[in-house]
């Protein structure tokens, strides 16, 4: 796979210089590949958001660098191009919608790109269609549920036709059902539209569908690998204050009861298949 984002020795601290400097990122090295679904997890305050905000140059590194499609985020002349490639969706949908009408909000990004009106209209239509929210076109965000608002926010990013979408804990304010629906959409955007996805989350339910994941703690990457590889590192996961997927917890409990189950079960389907073998 092609390398898309490359993070080189990145460090960042908030309030540098005075007494209460907080080191948020400490020597991060990582790569994101074109078309992959990467999950970034870790407790609140582990540095996930700070890292994500470097991907499109919203924050500038104290030292080190981030390359996006070969361009450095420190290069001011390339910033507009980088932001066009990488869309971002944030935690609270209310704080990222600009306009009081859905369709106008979705148009905000393409308008900023200076596209001609017809192109903007067709992109807005396409984005709303892709996310199945055409019926909300003329609504006001104030009348929508949190889940719907978050879909509008994603549509607004999608209309800019990014190559990669970074989602910073997008399901925090959602109820469990909207959470599942949003996840399905993210997976679809990745598989059908070929969009690179970087999902920041602390819900293990959402992590199990990714291709690769990294676990952060205190501004450093502690574990990385496929979900299967990562969830086998039981003691480390516990130490980092994270959960296990329910299927993994269940499998561990059943192994304790003397059942012969493999150690790398993370999804419901895997667990059921293995249990059926024992029957």
């Amino acid at each position, binding site marked *: 796979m092609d390398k898309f984002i490359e993070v080189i020795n990145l460090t960042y601290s908030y309030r540098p210089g005075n007494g209460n400097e907080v080191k948020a990122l400490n020597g991060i090295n990582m790569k994101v590949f074109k078309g992959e679904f990467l999950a970034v997890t870790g407790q609140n305050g582990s540095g996930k958001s700070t890292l994500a*905000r470097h991907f*499109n140059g*919203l924050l500038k590194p104290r030292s080190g660098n981030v390359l996006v499609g070969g361009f450095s985020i420190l290069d001011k002349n390339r910033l*507009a191009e980088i*932001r*066009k490639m990488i*869309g*971002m969706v*944030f935690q*609270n949908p*209310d*704080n*990222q*919608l*600009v*306009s*009081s*009408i859905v*369709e*106008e909000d979705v*148009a*905000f*990004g*393409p*308008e*900023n*790109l*200076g*596209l*001609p*009106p017809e192109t*903007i*209209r067709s992109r*807005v239509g396409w984005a709303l269609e892709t996310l199945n929210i055409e019926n909300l076109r*003329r609504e*006001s*965000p*104030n009348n929508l549920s949190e889940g719907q608002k978050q879909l509008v926010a994603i549509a*607004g*990013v999608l209309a*800019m036709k990014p190559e990669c979408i970074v989602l910073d804990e997008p399901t925090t304010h959602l109820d469990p059902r909207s959470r599942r629906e949003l996840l399905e959409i993210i997976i679809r955007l990745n598989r059908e539209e070929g969009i690179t996805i970087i999902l920041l989350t602390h819900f293990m339910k959402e992590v199990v569908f990714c291709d690769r994941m990294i676990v952060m703690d205190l501004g450093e990457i502690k574990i990385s690998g496929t979900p299967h590889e990562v969830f086998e590192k039981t003691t480390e996961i516990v130490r980092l204050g994270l959960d296990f997927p329910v299927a993994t917890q269940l499998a561990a409990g059943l192994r304790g009861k003397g059942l012969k189950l493999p150690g790398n079960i993370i999804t419901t389907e895997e667990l059921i298949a293995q249990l059926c073998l024992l029957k």
Partner: protein
Amino acid sequence: MELTKNITLGVYLPGETVIHRLDPRTKIIIASVLIILLLMIKSYPAYAVILTFLSAVIFMSGIPLSYALCGLKPMLPVLILMWVFQLFLYSNPDSKVIFSFWIFTATDSGMHMGNLISLRVIFLFTVTTILTLTTSMVSLTDGLESLLNPLRKFGLPIQELVMTMVIALRFVLILAEELDKIVKAQMARGVAFDRGNFIQKTKKLFPVFLPLFINAFKRAEELIVAMEARSYTGGKGRTKMKTLQMSRVDLGAGFVMLIFSAIVVLLIITIKPQI
């Protein structure tokens, strides 16, 4: 307690009436002319003409009258206070005394002044309410931007100002709802907002406004980041999805407004002012 219930300013009531369909620029111009006229009027007959005009507009727009006026309710105490002030404090040389007690004297010119100022406030409020109830914020700001655009030649940041307005208006409701929750959260901890003297009451607002401001700043900060991430760098190089288009209805409305203004101006010139 629902704080957002009586806020009608900035609320859009969707509809398909003629008033709704007018180009926002037409509506802004008409509203501005009405406001200028209102600031010039000093006699009751002219107000009667405006009243007729506004009644017709409200009727045509399909807004329930009670709803169009309910935004005035919270302003009522201020209006009454203002009226009383005018009644006792304003007088001109040939005014007649209605009654007096202690050091206060109420004159007829004071009463007229009070009436006219109250009417002016009520009408100004109604004009802006009708405008916002029938025009979505987005088209309102589109219209404003298009009308003010010539001023950009003088270096005024029109697009940025308009964007600021769009956002402010989007957050009015959000913050009002937030205020409602904060008030309830503190009521749940035993704050009695309706008790105590002025100083005590003012002190009680502290635990309400502090969280409100902190949250508002937090929201603003997040919004700025989100806008930046969506490639916003100010008005330069921005295009618009929608382009405004005037139609025959706008022409008609302009014509009606012209005749109406002529009548009002005529009344202003010919009728001797009440004060």
